[in-house]
C-alpha cells in the first residue's frame, strides 16, 4: 500500500458524521387528558369534574417524582392530547379557552396542548434551514411513518435473519398467530386448529394482534394505538427525523385560525412551562383506555429507537443523577383511575 496513506493527517467531513440534535428535557411529562370528539363536545362542567379527579393523582405523581429527583427540584410539565384525526373538534379558540378555564378552576395548569393528527400527517419543517431552498427540501415524513420504519418485529422461535420483515399487512403481534381455520379448498376438510402463542410467554400465552393501519380509498388511516405509541415516543424525546428534532413546541399564536390543521402540532399554552419532552411519561386516564395503552406497550416493545438518541438521553440523565430505565417501555407509567363519565373514541 502507498506510503502516503500512513501519514498522520486525517480527513474530517461533516456529512459523514451521524450526530443527532438534542432536545430540552423535563424529569416528568404528565398527561392530564386524552380527549376524543364525543368528550370534546361536553361543557366546561364536564372538564372541571375531569380535571378535579385527575388533580388528586397529579399530586401523587408530583410527589413520586420529587422523591426520585436528586436535590428535590423536579422539572414537571403537563399536557393534554386532543383528537383531531378521527373527529373534528370545535374551533381552536373556543376549545382552548374551555380547556384552560376548566383546568384552572380545578387547580391545574395545562402547559402543552397537542393535536393527535400531528402524529399522522406530514409535519412541515418547523425551522426551515435558510440554506436549503424550500422546493428542493425532501418531502417530510409523518411521525407515524418514522416510527413504523423503526419496527423490529419480535421473532417467533426458530427465526433467523432469513425471515423477511412482515410489515405489509398493517398488523403487529407479540407471538405466532393461530393458523387460518377456514376449510382448505383442495382438501375439502378443515385444517386442525392450533392455538396462537406469545413469544415471551410465562407458562401461558397472552397473545395480542394489533392493527397499526388500514389503507383505504382516502389513503392510510393510522390506528389509535399506533398514534398513541408515536405520541409516547414523542413525549419521551426519542423521535428524530434525519437527526433533527421533530414537533418542537410553539407558543400559542395571537390570532387563532379556525382550522386545527393550520396550527403547529405541539402548542405551548403556559409561557413558564418546563420542557415538553421528559425522561419519563406519566399518563393518567380512565380504565377505558387500558386496551389501547396495552397495545401501545406491545408496539413500543418492538420499536428500535435510534441507539444514538438513546445514548444521548441516557447520558444526560446520568449527568443529572437521574435513574433512567434502559428499556423505553419502562419509562412510561400509568394511573388508570375514574376520571368521570368519559366516552373515549366512540364507535366511529
Amino acid at each position, binding site marked *: 500500500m502507498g506510503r502516503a496513506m500512513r501519514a498522520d493527517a486525517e480527513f474530517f467531513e461533516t456529512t459523514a458524521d451521524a450526530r443527532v440534535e438534542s432536545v430540552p428535557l423535563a424529569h416528568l411529562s404528565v398527561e392530564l387528558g386524552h380527549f376524543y370528539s364525543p368528550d370534546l363536545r361536553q361543557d366546561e362542567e364536564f372538564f372541571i369534574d375531569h380535571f378535579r379527579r385527575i388533580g388528586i393523582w397529579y399530586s401523587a405523581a408530583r410527589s413520586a417524582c420529587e422523591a426520585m429527583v436528586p436535590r428535590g427540584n423536579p422539572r414537571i410539565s403537563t399536557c393534554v392530547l386532543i383528537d383531531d384525526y378521527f373527529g373534528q373538534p370545535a374551533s381552536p379558540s373556543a376549545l382552548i379557552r374551555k380547556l384552560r378555564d376548566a383546568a384552572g378552576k380545578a387547580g391545574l395548569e395545562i402547559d402543552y396542548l397537542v393535536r393527535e393528527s400531528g402524529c399522522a400527517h406530514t409535519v412541515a419543517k418547523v425551522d426551515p434551514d435558510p440554506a436549503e431552498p424550500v422546493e428542493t427540501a425532501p418531502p417530510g415524513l409523518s411521525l407515524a411513518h418514522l416510527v413504523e420504519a423503526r419496527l423490529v418485529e419480535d421473532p417467533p422461535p426458530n427465526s433467523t435473519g432469513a425471515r423477511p420483515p412482515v410489515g405489509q399487512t398493517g398488523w403487529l403481534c407479540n407471538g405466532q398467530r393461530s393458523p387460518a381455520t377456514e376449510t382448505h379448498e383442495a382438501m375439502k376438510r378443515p385444517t386442525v386448529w392450533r392455538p396462537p402463542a406469545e413469544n415471551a410467554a410465562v407458562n401461558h400465552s397472552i397473545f395480542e394482534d394489533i392493527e397499526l393501519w388500514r389503507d383505504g380509498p382516502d389513503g392510510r388511516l393510522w390506528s389509535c394505538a399506533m398514534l398513541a405509541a408515536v405520541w409516547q415516543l414523542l413525549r419521551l424525546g426519542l423521535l428524530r427525523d*434525519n437527526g433533527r428534532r421533530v414537533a418542537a413546541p410553539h407558543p400559542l399564536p395571537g390570532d387563532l385560525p379556525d382550522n386545527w390543521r393550520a396550527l403547529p402540532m405541539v402548542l405551548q399554552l403556559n409561557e413558564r412551562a418546563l420542557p415538553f419532552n421528559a425522561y419519563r411519561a406519566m399518563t393518567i386516564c380512565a380504565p377505558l383506555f387500558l386496551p389501547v395503552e396495552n397495545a401501545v406497550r406491545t408496539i413500543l416493545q418492538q420499536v428500535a429507537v435510534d441507539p444514538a438518541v438513546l445514548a444521548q438521553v441516557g447520558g444526560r440523565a446520568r449527568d443529572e443523577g437521574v435513574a433512567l430505565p434502559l428499556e423505553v417501555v419502562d419509562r412510561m407509567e400509568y394511573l388508570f383511575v375514574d376520571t368521570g363519565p368519559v366516552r373515549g373514541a366512540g364507535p366511529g
Partner: protein
Amino acid sequence: MVLVLGEVMTAALRHSGGMPRERVEDALGLLAGERVRISERPIGYAVSPKTFTGVDCRILARSGAKVRGVGTLMGRACLTGGRVLQSSAVARIDPVGGGYRRAWSHYLARLGVVEALGRTDLPGTAAAHLAADRSSSTMGMGAFCVRLLSEIQGSPVLDKSTPVRARRTVLRWAALIDERNEGVRVRFAVREDGLRTVRLVLGPAEIDDIVDLCEDLALHDWLLTALMSVIEQSQIGVEQPAQSVLKLRPAVDHLLHLWMPAARLGGVALSVWEGLESRPGLSRQWDASVRRVRDQMAMAAALSSSRPPESARFFR
C-alpha cells in the same frame, strides 16, 4: 472475551453511469428518517443507516453443541466509488446465564447483540461460524445480506446494467476481542467453495471499526477477483491486442482507481493490512495485474499508431 460475528457480501452496483449524491441517498436509504452518510475523500464512500432484524434460533459451537440465541442482527450497506456495493450482517454474541427468553424490549435496548442462552464456548462458536457451509451461515446472516443487497439493487434509481462483469463474493468473519491481547492477529483464507473467511484476534476495539475493516478487506478481495476475471476474459496472448484491450477497458474505467487499502480507516485496520501484505500480498498481486493491463494497453496503442493495419497481421 467478546465475540463478534459477521458476513459481508460484495457485488458491482447494477448501474452503468455515475451516481450523484441524491441518487446514492435514495438507493441506500434503508430506513426512513435516517441519514445516508456520504464522504468524498479520500474515496467516494456512502453508508446506509443501520437496520436490524430479530432472531431466535440455534447457534452452533464447534463441539457440535447448540445454544439458543435471541437478539438482533445489525445490517447495513455501503457503496464505494459509486461502483462497488456491499452489505453486512453483524452480531455480538453475549453469553448469558439462565435459559429463558426475555421480553422483546430487552433485546431492542441492546441492538446488534444476540444473547446466547446457556453455556457458550466463544472460540468454538467463532470456529463453527467460519467452518459452516457457504449456504448455511450463522443465524441466517447470508440471507440477511442478500435481502439488503437485493433491496438496493432493485432500487428504481438504478438502470440495472452492470459495466463490469464480476461474481458476487462472500466474506465471513469472526473477531475475538480480549482486553489482554496486544496487537492483532489475522487469518485470511479463500476456501475451495469460494467463501472468504477472516479470523481476527485483537485487543480492545470498537465493533464499528471491525465492520469497516472487514468490509474493506472484502472490497479489495472483490476488486482483485474482478480484475483477474476481466483479464481472464480478455484472453491476453490469444486475441489480438486491440481485441483484448476492448475487453480490458471496463477494468480501466471502473476498477483500477478504487484500490486504496485502509484508505478511510485507522489503527487496527492499518496493522491488519500491514500483516496481510507481508504474507499473501494482496497489493502485490493487484500491482502485477494492473501492470499487465497497462502493458496490454501500451502495446495495443503502439501497434495501432506505429504500423499500418495490414502489416499488423505480420505479427499474428
